[in-house]
């Protein structure tokens, strides 16, 4: 079986699962875990958009 993901979906899948693990392992209470997981996910995806626009500007 071969799965082909585009750049954005690969980054989104990576961000989702990495954020879950970071949330669980880096905080103590359930509420803090959820908050930190969401924060990591937002930072990952934010970083993707910032890097994407930076590359677009560099290419022009």
């Amino acid at each position, binding site marked *: 079986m*071969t799965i082909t*993901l585009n750049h954005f979906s*690969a980054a989104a899948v990576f961000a989702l699962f*990495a954020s879950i693990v*970071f949330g669980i392992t880096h905080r*103590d*209470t359930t509420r803090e875990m959820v908050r930190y997981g969401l924060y990591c996910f937002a930072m990952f995806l934010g970083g993707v958009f910032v890097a994407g626009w930076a590359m677009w500007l560099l290419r022009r």
Partner: protein
Amino acid sequence: MANSTTEKTRVAEAQPLSMMAVLAPALGWLIPGAGHIIQRRWIRGLLLFVSIATLFLLGLAMQGRIYKANGGDILDMLGFVGDVGAGALYIVTLANDWGQGAIAFATADYGTKFMIVAGLLNFIAVADAYHIAIGKKR
């Protein structure tokens, strides 16, 4: 402040090594999330297993390459260290000769990174299971 830290270190050193402090990290390495599950952190363990296993299997399905111990190149060795963190997933992949990588797919390199990161994330999960076992974390 410094005395307080020294005191904590001494208390930590004085604690005997429990069976769980050895078993949880070992099992957690072999099966991602199992270190949490045997300590009755069911949801955390399940979420860790699903996240790490899915990332690893997606990497495999994306035609990612698995690194071997005798790669020779320093970067290959680092890749091996990351991959081996996935425990049984890595062992099964290696035993079945999967994960040979395909140059034909541009996203195969993403797959390789997915598998390395899955192993590295499992190392973090193993450390977390150990911290729960020694009572450093709830």
